[in-house]
């Protein structure tokens, strides 16, 4: 079977005081090739844990993950990851950062130079190739991170709040860029975010997760990502369906937060 299969995934952390935290419970999901899934939920719902398990940085206590039929046991180049911030290598310039994957795979410069330069062109950093990454703004750094991930040509791209640290204006531009890259490359993408608006704009499918234990609460299939490829994102946001769904999800998350607060008050 092709695509990404997540089967009955559970994750329990044992704490030093003999109690344990159920970060994920019985999460199952199938992601077809080329689908863009955004994951939303209050803090502590296990979004990042889920992403780390898919990336191979954590081994689940139960369940398994299969990509294109084979089981995931650790990190590999087929599953690229884009982090929120600070994952670029300051001792390399922009071009060396983007070429990191191919270079580590032992490819020669003439084999990767074309791809890398094309990607730098696509993310709008052609004139910044030779710059040190710490000389770039936060938005530009995230473009480098995106290009670096794409240069390795992974099957799945995992994004852990990649736009979370950017200002509102830059964020909007980057959202368009993510959509454009998704459409152009046809990659399977899982995007974790805190912003309901971003999840709606970018997610072809949207997963709302609930905490304690971390589980899938509700799933949506949304038209906005496809609309956003051709249209201005601000026009998409004016869509009546967009506002309706946003209010619904906000209410949902709000209720979850209230429930958590109530529960902690009870225990106190």
């Amino acid at each position: 079977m092709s695509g990404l299969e997540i089967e009955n995934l559970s994750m329990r952390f044992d704490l030093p005081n003999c109690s344990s935290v159920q970060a994920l419970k019985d999460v199952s999901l199938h992601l077809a090739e080329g689908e863009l899934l955004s994951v939303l939920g209050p803090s502590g719902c296990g979004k990042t844990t889920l992403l780390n398990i898919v990336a191979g940085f954590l081994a689940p206590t139960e369940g398994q993950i299969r990509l294109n039929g084979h089981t995931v046991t650790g990190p590999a180049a087929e599953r690229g990851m884009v982090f929120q911030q600070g994952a670029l290598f300051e001792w390399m310039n922009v071009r060396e950062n983007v070429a990191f994957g191919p270079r580590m795979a032992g490819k020669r410069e003439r084999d990767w130079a074309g791809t890398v330069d094309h990607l730098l062109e696509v993310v709008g950093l052609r004139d910044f190739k030779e710059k040190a990454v710490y000389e770039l703004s936060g938005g530009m750094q995230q473009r480098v991170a995106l290009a670096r991930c794409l240069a390795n040509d992974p099957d799945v791209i995992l994004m852990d709040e990649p736009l979370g640290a950017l200002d509102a204006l830059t964020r909007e531009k980057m959202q368009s860029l993510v959509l454009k890259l998704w459409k152009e490359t046809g990659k399977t993408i899982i995007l974790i975010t805190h912003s309901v608006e971003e999840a709606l704009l970018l997610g072809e499918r949207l997963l709302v997760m609930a905490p304690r234990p971390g589980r899938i609460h509700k799933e949506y299939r949304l038209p906005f990502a496809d609309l956003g490829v051709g249209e201005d994102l601000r026009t998409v946001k004016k869509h009546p369906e967009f506002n309706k769904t946003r209010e619904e999800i906000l209410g949902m998350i709000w209720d979850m937060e209230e429930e958590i607060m109530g529960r902690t008050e009870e225990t106190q």
Partner: protein
Amino acid sequence: MIVLLIYVAIFVASFFLVKLLVHKTTRDFTARKTVTFGDESAVRPNRIASVISVLTIFLLWGAFTGSSWVPGFLHAPGPFVGDATFTYTAEAEGAAPDDATVTVRVFPVGEDVEAPEVDPGAGWAKDDSDSVGAWRSGLIRVDRNDGYGRDEGHTVVAVNGEPIAPGGEVITEFGRVGMSPKGTLNFEPRKGWQMEPIWLPPPEAVLARLKEIAQDGYRDSTLWEHLGWSLFRVIAGFFFGALIGIPLGYAMGLSDWFRGWFDPIVEFMRPVPPLALIPLVIIWAGIGETGKIILLFLAALWIMAIAARSGVSGVKISKVHAAYSLGASKAQIMRHVIVPNSLPEIFTGARVAMGVCWGTVVAAELVAAEKGAGMMIMVASKFQLTDIVIMGIILIGVIGFGIDILMRFAEKALVPWKGRG
């Protein structure tokens, strides 16, 4: 005390003078800040103050040593030099009290001077003459040429008309005349406020000594050999310390077994000052080069190990994760992520280690060495060659400062990403 008062006076006076005369013409951002008290970034060193500060040190040094670099009117009062005179009144059994004059020629130490010729004069107490070096004192046996000796009860009862008794003193315009418990006069010419060269030589004497030692050497070695040996020991000790310490630190940062094994050793050795190891190293390896290099190796080793370990621990996990998910192997992550990421920390450690090594080598040479900057000043101090001691201290300071500047340059050139992660 007077020096401190003058120093404070110059500090305050130059502050007001500079504020009055120099109006800041800078119109940069800081100049527009209204809140500067408490804003550390708005406090930048006033370079005029730095220049005045250095000049003041040399001015005070010159003024209180009678330096030829400082114009004469700025000199602190020097010691009295020339012919000093005072009169004494002597009594003896069966004779009327009689007065006589003593002429003392006070000369700069080092010159060959004879006591002045004086006419003995009238009366039974004859005029005397003697010579005393500046800053020194001398006994003057005024009874030697008098008509009555001590056997006849010769006693001095007054100096310049002021009564004096054994253990007492009279201050004259040329200096102090004291009387020993046995009744002998003791003349101590006025010393003034200047320092004697054996305590503090004037700056030009230090410079002259520097030229002399640079040309002729000291204790069978040239100045460059002394300094070169000290530097060689530091570099050799630091090199071996880094050679072992950095891999050790990496191993401690990457493996739980290594960390567990070496943690107690490193944590115990770190607070032991290298100076405390000198006696043991001398017992084990003697005072030769091996001992010195072992000592400096030990001084640098722990610093470098701890720097490398914290460099590894400081790597952001997202960088390592990113490298893994881009398909890098463990060796590639070591080479392309962990090592470059730890370089800033290692450079900081290297700067500290170089400073510690330089201090330790001087101390080790003070204890025992045949060549070296520390040995030079130690031997010179035994002969009270204060000018060599001061010259040595200045050179040690300049070299230590130079090492630090070089390390900073190297750091800027090799790890430009420091602090930008």
